């Protein structure tokens, strides 16, 4: 079947003809092989102009189009929808950005610009002839489950937001703690495996002693931080150090600590075992201030390297200092130590004074939200990458703050990076809302511009399997690579790296890319 191409030349109101001879472009298009319709319009983003184009597209039974206009992201959505109604597959439309690639940047080179535009039209026609129609598939979500791993502050907020959006929430909490949250809460439960793709995951979970399967349309990792014990030399000397959250709990039960209270900023001040030494100063300062207010005669010291009281929390730092809490800065060379023979004294070299202070203490408190040790198992089960500091890695800022590399799997709170409870709650809200809105659609889609392996050419080298960020390629029954369409994001990384050239990316095949490149390089301008 011979192609029937419609060429649309948009004047971008008046900007394009200001530099280019659009009539000549129209003429070249009309004379070109397989072009059955040429429309010049003022603004392809204008409804009336668009209607005229579509009318002729239907009349001439056009099966593909080359549109010379502006940036794809500005004009494509409406254009593709209109063409779809006119019976033209969305993957058969080639957009050429004359405005931002030619007209705007080549103001001082009008002749070359004209020749370049003509070359771009020719190259687009070459590409257009090679295009194939593609269809995206949609699949019903089997459930509207949003599964949340972790019932902490962030996980609970995520559950509430997802439930409000209409999802059914299931919280997997590894301890037996109870809390109020919508949906189902499974205590003593852990994620051990996962299969499937966005919208239709099947999780393997352990609840108590039993191993079960659980369907999930979306997953939120809210494992929080892992409270640890003291590490290193300090751990050997002090046996009853209290993590901050425990101090907080005790104070809530009116069990005030035995003074003097010394708070160290990290469980391992000598820094040999922990690389990440950061936590929520908001909560720490709030707790010591409350302690000092309730027991003014108790001496309180905060021993730290960097006073990371961000934002308005700086005022809490000031308040703490004003009410008599003593702040002592140290650096690694003078890190706090406790002599096991004199276990009630903390020796630390004050950074500014240079003197070693000896602080008698009744209670040693340490605050830290290092990464949760469970993250590794969860990342492994979900097949998502971790951050090098032990948290769960987000995809990229471009994708969004709470999205992991896999679409449909979100991460929030201290599982991402140590943060205050309040911000962890907001992040949970964001992740829950996004997961809930996605699940509400009830459908997931994939396909279209996706990769496909030509099995005969595959040498099963596993390069694609190792390279794909989404784990779409796998070695199938024929001992050759196959691409799971449901997981394929259409990036083409596997295609570009395959040493056997066995993989093709539909809509961006080697022939299409090189054909367009060759045609452009053939142009004389």
């Amino acid at each position, binding site marked *: 079947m011979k192609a029937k191409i419609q060429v649309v030349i948009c004047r971008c109101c008046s900007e394009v003809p200001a530099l280019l001879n659009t009539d000549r472009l129209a003429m070249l298009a009309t004379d070109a092989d397989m072009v059955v319709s040429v429309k010049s319009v003022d603004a392809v983003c204008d409804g009336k102009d668009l209607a005229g184009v579509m009318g002729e597209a239907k009349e001439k039974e056009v099966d593909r189009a080359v549109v010379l206009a502006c940036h794809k*992201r500005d004009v494509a959505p409406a254009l593709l929808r209109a063409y779809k109604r006119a019976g033209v597959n969305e993957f058969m439309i080639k957009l050429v950005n004359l405005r931002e690639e030619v007209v705007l940047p080549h103001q001082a080179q009008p002749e070359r610009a004209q020749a370049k535009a003509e070359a771009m039209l020719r190259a687009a026609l070459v590409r257009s002839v090679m295009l194939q129609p593609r269809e995206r598939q949609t699949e019903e979500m089997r459930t509207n489950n949003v599964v949340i791993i972790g019932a902490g502050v962030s996980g609970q907020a995520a559950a509430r937001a997802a439930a*409000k959006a209409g999802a059914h929430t299931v919280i997997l909490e590894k301890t037996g703690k109870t809390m109020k949250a919508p949906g189902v809460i499974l205590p003593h439960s852990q994620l051990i495996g996962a299969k499937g793709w966005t919208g239709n995951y099947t999780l393997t979970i352990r609840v108590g002693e039993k191993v079960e399967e659980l369907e999930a349309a979306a997953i939120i990792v809210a494992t929080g931080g892992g409270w640890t014990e003291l590490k290193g030399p300090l751990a050997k000397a002090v046996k009853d150090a209290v993590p901050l959250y425990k101090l907080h709990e005790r104070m809530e039960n009116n069990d005030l600590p035995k003074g003097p209270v010394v708070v160290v900023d990290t469980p391992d001040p000598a820094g040999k075992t922990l690389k990440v030494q950061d936590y929520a100063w908001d909560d720490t300062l709030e707790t010591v201030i409350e302690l000092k207010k309730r027991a003014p005669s108790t001496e309180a010291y905060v021993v730290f390297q960097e006073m990371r009281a*961000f934002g308005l929390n700086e005022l809490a730092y000031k308040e703490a200092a004003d009410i008599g809490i003593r702040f002592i800065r140290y650096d690694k060379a003078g890190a706090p130590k406790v002599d096991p023979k004199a276990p009630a004294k903390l020796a630390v070299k004050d950074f500014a004074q240079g003197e070693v202070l000896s602080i008698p203490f009744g209670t040693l408190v340490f605050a830290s939200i290092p990464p949760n040790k469970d993250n590794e198992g969860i990342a492994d089960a979900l097949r998502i990458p971790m951050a090098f500091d032990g948290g769960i890695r987000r995809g990229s800022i471009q994708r969004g703050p709470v999205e992991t590399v896999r679409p449909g799997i979100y991460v929030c709170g201290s599982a991402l990076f140590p943060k205050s409870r309040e911000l962890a709650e907001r992040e949970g809200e964001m992740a829950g809302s996004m997961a809930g809105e996605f699940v509400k659609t009830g459908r997931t889609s994939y396909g279209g511009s996706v990769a496909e392996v030509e099995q005969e050419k595959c040498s099963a080298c596993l390069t694609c399997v190792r390279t794909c960020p989404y784990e779409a390629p796998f070695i199938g029954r024929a001992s050759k690579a196959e691409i799971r369409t449901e997981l394929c994001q259409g990036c083409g990384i596997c295609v570009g790296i395959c040493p056997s050239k066995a993989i093709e990316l539909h809509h961006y095949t080697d022939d299409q890319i090189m054909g367009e490149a060759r045609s452009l390089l053939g142009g004389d301008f």
Partner: protein
Amino acid sequence: MKEVLIIGGGPAGLTAAKALVDRGDGVVLVERKESLGGMARELTCKGIVECRNCGVCLAVDRANDAVRDGSAEVLLLSEVSSIVREGERYAAKIKTSPRYVTDDCTGCGKCTSVCPVEGKAIASPTGSGIPRTFWIDRNKCLHFKKGKCVACAEACPAKAINFEDRARNLTRKIDAVVYATGIDPMDACEVSRFGCGILKDVVSSVDAERILNEKGELKRPSDGKAPKKIAVMQCVGSRTVKKGVEYCSKFCCKYATKISQLLLDIDPEVNLDFYFMDLRTLYEPQDDFKAWAKGKKTVRLIRSMPATVNLGQNGKLLVRATGETDTEIAETEYDMVILSVGMKPSGAASELAKSLGIDADGMGFAKASQELEDKGVFVVGAVSEPMDIEETAERAVATASRIHTKEGGA
């Protein structure tokens, strides 16, 4: 489907707009300035090969989304004059000032080059503001002051100048208001001992970011040469009881450490001294920047708040500061000094805010509250407390989801 009025087109307003549009709600976004992006548009991307997670492109991406998605009504050069309760909803009156330049503008800049006014009456949006259409400030423009000049209209190849553009008064019925008026940078010159305003090569961090965003390299304002020795000073005007504010602006260490890394990317031989009080690198372990600095032979981290910056020899700047342990004083010469300034909330104490029931606290922050949200008024972003772009975006989506799922009307 709710109709939401968003006051402010910065990271908070833009992210909330996208989140609401994605959830099927109607949005009217009102931005006071000539383009979208808020404070973020003045800032530079801090990566050359590797992303440094500063969040600036997040704001630009959301601005592009707002303009491209036809469903959000974006009003630039606009201000909300009043919002009054009307039964279950609100009626908002919005005044749109004329731009005098149409969408045909190609950003070529010929108009600016022929504009006879000193300081230029017609100019492009600052920084990476979206859209890139130029605009005329009628308070500066001779055509409006004297009635004659048409230099820009004659020079414009796209015929995009329209002196007939008029102010418009619009009314919109809405169910909720998002108050996201954002921030202004602190004035570095408030802290006068650093020579700001007097010594040309002492610049604020915002100005340094503007220069880097525009050109991708830093040049001394005095002689246009590339600086070979730079001092970056943190907490200028923040964490102080004297000139400035007591609070910490939260994002300055994050941005300044990344600017420092960018400057070393651009010129690996540049000497950089980073003066700070506490290293508050947001969302990154405190040791990371220290490890990076250790790996670079020409970077020093100096825990000290400098006392003065004066003119040194041969046009250099002399920074006087104590050493880290307060036991000695050092005087060091630099080609350029970058003062990291914090932020002040903007628009929290306006008449409009008051009419909505928003109280500005003593430091000028507008506090969000359950009471306000029950009434349909949602305060979000750095106008409520110091935060960086990433946190702003998160809170904005959380707010949008609360608006979307809120029962009943305002």
